[in-house]
């Protein structure tokens, strides 16, 4: 039986009588006999306890206890329990899109605060109320840039997450968009090649900071040149790093996107995450996604509503700026709780601790024979090392020592099979990092390197 259905047999009888039919089957008369399911071999229902046990046993069969030096855009930051405690309040959890502002001020104000926090983080004027994740946000930014200047060529730095780059290619395979991908040089954007590629035909230049190798950059010069040629700059950013790094606004970026998972969201094997987007005020009408704005009620009190809805699919249909409807509002609120807890000094401190620990590990690793720490660019909390042997094999061995040792680059950069990207967060202790180095020495010794 379905424990979530309340109707008793008496209710059913009386309701059917009110409707004027004899049986529930009669309500389905438009579904003709030939429409009946060819099969419906779903297992019998189970008790809640049995499901808890079974699904719990699946959870137990995952190596979630590995010590993570693995990042790649998705990081193992500390999530204080007060966050899930607030976010699991039914009033946030079981509401829907705030179509009725009078009984949705909680979600609306929380999203307004989220937008404001994202604006302050990035330095931009306006932000939307969320997109699905960092990759789809980057895709939406690209589409927005194409709409803004009517061109169809995109210059993309190869230092942008290879996963995101693949997504952009997939989404646009049926569209007339010309991609020019520029291989990074020594881990950093090859600015000369990028500058050469940007012409009067270029709609947008897509960059990432820090990039997939962990390299930190200042893209101001690329932005200036692109603007000269009428192109827009899109930058994908890592929010925690912005506690320290030059903001997109300070580099004169036009559209900022990013993966907000590190703002208090669990890794959860890939989602739900949080795509954020911020831009210049003058571009707001071309921005996709919901936007919460301030207004007043009939008595002049400040309140919040979904605004500029004429951009959206439920009004504009095929002419909408995006097809997005359900976004990840709860994740945005979750991030806003995290940003509020951290505060301005907290993020600065968090960024500092992340970088300090990372620098320590870099130094320790550089003492291992055969390991070369790439130092061509500054890094934040992720960096690339070159190993004397295949990095994927090293990573596989490191699992025995309890480490997810990093992301081997060979999968997406075939010429870089000996390179490993290593990530550190505030959760990693000096003891863990020392142990990591010891283990790596052993693995390399065994490999005869």
């Amino acid at each position, binding site marked *: *039986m379905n424990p979530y259905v309340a109707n008793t047999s008496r209710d059913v009888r009386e309701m059917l009588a009110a409707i004027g039919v004899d049986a529930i089957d009669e309500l389905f008369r438009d579904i003709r006999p030939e429409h009946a399911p060819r099969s419906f071999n779903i297992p019998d229902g189970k008790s809640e306890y049995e499901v808890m046990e079974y699904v719990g046993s699946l959870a137990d069969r995952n190596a979630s206890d590995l010590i993570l030096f693995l990042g790649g855009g998705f990081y193992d930051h500390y999530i204080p329990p007060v966050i899930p405690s607030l976010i699991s309040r039914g*009033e946030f959890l079981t509401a829907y899109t705030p179509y*009725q502002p*009078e009984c949705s001020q909680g979600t609306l104000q929380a999203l307004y605060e989220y937008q404001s926090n994202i604006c*302050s983080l990035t330095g931009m004027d306006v*932000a939307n109320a969320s997109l699905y994740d960092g990759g789809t946000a980057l895709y939406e930014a690209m589409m927005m840039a194409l709409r803004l200047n009517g061109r169809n060529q995109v210059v993309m730095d190869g230092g942008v997450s290879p996963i995101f780059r693949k997504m952009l290619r997939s989404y646009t395979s049926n569209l007339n968009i010309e991609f020019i991908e520029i291989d990074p040089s020594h881990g950093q954007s090859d600015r000369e090649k990028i500058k050469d590629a940007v012409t009067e035909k270029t709609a947008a230049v897509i960059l990432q900071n820090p990039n997939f190798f962990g390299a930190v950059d*200042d893209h101001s010069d690329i932005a200036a040149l692109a603007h000269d040629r009428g192109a827009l700059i899109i930058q994908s950013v890592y929010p925690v790093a912005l506690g320290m790094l030059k903001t997109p606004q300070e580099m004169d970026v036009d559209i900022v996107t990013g993966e907000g998972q590190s703002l208090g969201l669990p890794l959860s094997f890939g989602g739900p995450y949080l795509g954020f987007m911020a831009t210049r005020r003058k571009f707001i009408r071309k921005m996709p996604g919901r936007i919460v704005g301030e207004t007043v009620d009939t008595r002049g009190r400040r309140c919040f*509503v979904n605004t500029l809805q004429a951009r959206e699919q*439920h009004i504009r249909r095929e002419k909408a700026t995006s097809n997005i409807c359900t976004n990840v509002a709860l994740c945005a609120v979750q991030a806003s709780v995290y940003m509020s807890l951290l505060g301005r000094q907290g993020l600065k401190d968090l960024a500092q601790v992340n970088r300090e620990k990372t620098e320590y590990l870099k130094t320790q690793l550089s003492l291992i024979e055969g390991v070369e720490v790439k130092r061509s660019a500054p890094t934040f909390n992720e960096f690339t090392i070159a190993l004397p042997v295949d990095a994927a094999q090293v990573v596989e061995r490191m699992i025995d020592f309890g480490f997810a040792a990093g992301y081997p680059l060979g999968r997406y950069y075939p010429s870089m099979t000996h390179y490993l990207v290593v990530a550190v967060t505030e959760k990693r202790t000096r003891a863990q990092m020392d142990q990591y180095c010891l283990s790596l020495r052993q693995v390399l010794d065994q490999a005869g390197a």
Partner: protein
Amino acid sequence: MKLIFEKTQSGRRGLSLPQSDVPEQKSMDSRYCRQEQLQWPEVTELDVVRHFTHLSQRNFSVDANLYPLGSCTMKYNPRFTEALAALPGFAGLHPLLPQLGRGYALTQGALQLLYEMESLLCEITGFDAFTLQPLAGAHGELTGVMMMAAYHKARGNHKTHIIIPDSAHGTNPASAAIAGYQTVAVPSNSDGVLDMERLREAVNDQTAGMMLTCPNTVGIFNSNIDHIARMIHEVDGIMYYDGANLNAILGRCRPGDLGFDVMHVNLHKTFATPHGGGGPGAGPVGVAGKLVPYLPISRVVKDEAGTFRLDYDEPDSIGYVASFYGNFAVIVKAFAYILLLGRDGLRQVGDHAVLNANYVQARLKGVFEAAYDRLCMHECVFSAVRQMEQGVHAVDIAKFLIDQGIHPMTIYFPLIVKEAMMIEPTETESRESLDFLIDAMLRAAALAGAQPDAMAAYPKTMPITRPDEVLAAKQMKVNYFAPCG
């Protein structure tokens, strides 16, 4: 209520962070560092807890209120599924772990869950394969349309447009358009279903496919559905099923058996995962055999040894639509819900969702104009035309309901019904709840007749009265830290 930024006091902290346990390092070259001061609030943990608790109290929710929002399936969200999704074995799992070798040994439980979920969805909907990657319903639509395009490309078809009924959700034409197709809208007839004559005129060799909700957004199941599918298939078009209304037909029929080639499922509707104030959801996509080669990568597969793997080697695939395997935590919740209900429980979903909607329709149609005077499926649509004669609109009735503690129904959608009021009670509401809704609606109608001018003042008991939406759009104040204008 104050914004959190208005509660800030310099020097307050809301979180104790791990301190550095390593020797001091040389700091970052300042040319890479931000100069602009961050303006996040400075508050204590208690400030944050009170702030967000008070905010939450300014929301209606399924937990506290009837929420018959049409087309959104605001059913009860069980809590045991939340506990499962939060288990460290799921919540702490890094999505790149499957790529670290060891024959996927690091994530067998998670991959098995995905594999079994795909199988369940295939059996529930009658399709041959599923991808769980799409992150919401509209994202599923886009994925489906991309596969449609890949199919036509592979067959050398030159197709330009997708046919969409005028009653469709706005996401359908939007998804078709961003994937590069033109859209052709086909009107509904006076019975609320697709006008077959107009459809026949619209279908031609340029037709890439058709996107359809069945039952549609006026709550009617189209008995001609197999006939429509044949018409589209005759021009080698693809039939897309918008699964937003799947709740109505669970166990009664399956889109895959009806002639559809591809569909998305909204896990946050039919399979009871919470809507979160507008997401996250999940929009898995199922396909019939001819579209299987185009499914996004990765695909979850089970090898002969019973090991679950991720297959990236699909040369015809449309590629990556999400970074990983979908909104995994949402999938866990929906999976647990399906296991608990089982075959009979799923059938009861559809049965009672439809019973409840018809009961509401039967009790209200004497007072409100039913958009279509016939049995409905999981939702019923009324028009406020009778009340409009007194100058009262659908929005006024909606706002009246708020003061009765009821989240309003969907209003002004579907667009084909004037002054539409679309009610979807779902199967989890009891008869007493439905009677409470019905009584409130009847009181609204009575007040609209007796004192129509009084209706514009609702709601009166909320933290705010009606907001000035025009001012919001005009001033565009969307960031606390930036001035207007």
